[in-house]
């Protein structure tokens, strides 16, 4: 039986490698019963999506010299 700590470690690693069959089974069993870890699993995917969109967003913030951005906000990718 996985603890939440172990389950969250697996959910994190699942972003970076293929989990083994037993790992997937234990994890599935845990997240079916643990809402907190099920939420964590969803959030691992969302973090990736948010980060990539953040990278593409132009925030149109002023440069360090204080000059205002004249271009206006651009839509993110």
């Amino acid at each position, binding site marked *: 039986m996985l603890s939440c700590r172990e389950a969250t470690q697996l959910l994190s690693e699942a972003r970076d490698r293929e989990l083994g069959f037993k790992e997937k089974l234990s994890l599935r069993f845990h997240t079916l019963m643990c809402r907190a870890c099920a939420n964590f699993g969803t959030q691992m995917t*969302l*973090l990736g999506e948010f980060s990539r969109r*953040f990278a593409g967003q132009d925030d149109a913030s002023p440069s*360090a010299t204080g000059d205002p951005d004249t271009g206006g906000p651009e839509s993110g990718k």
Partner: protein
Amino acid sequence: MEAVDSDDSLSRWKAHPLWHRDPGFIESLRLQLLPFATNQLADQHLAEDVVQETLLAAFQGADRFRGRAALKTWVFAILKNKIADALRKRRRGEVSATELDADGDGSSDDLFDRHGHWVDAAQPQGWGRPEETTGNAEFWRVIELCLDKLPAQQSRVFLMREVVQLDTAEICGALNVTVSNLNVLLYRARLRLRECLEDCWFERGEQC
């Protein structure tokens, strides 16, 4: 590593998409790096070296960071990481591999009880529909804030993995960390990022 003069380290950045949209921005970003590094290192010459290394290292994968806030976050994550390395070297006379994950946020003891279950107050909540949040400029400021709050090595590896999308072997090779160290760093980064996002955006209880 050979010293690179500022013209040379900047010249490759002229290919970056932001250079065309806002050429002043990259130059202004570069100008922020040296005072920051000098302040942390209290050594102008060392700070200059660290800044040059940062500009070179940050260029790998920089084209993925098309927004100003994102590029600044990326460059500063690398700068802070290199400053931390320089400080450790100065303190110990060498950098050992086991120190590379001693990044401040050493444990998740505040999140899990002794049985490994989530502590009540830390349990992840549902975040609803992301498409309802991501159109909001304030949301992206919170993302930026949460990334900047991470210890330097955690933010750097997180961005390398999730934005630049290097695989774990590539990151391990680039940073000279073991796979198990990298797993720990990514885990901690993700734990704290989601906590920060939940506190500062989705639950809004915390002051951020």
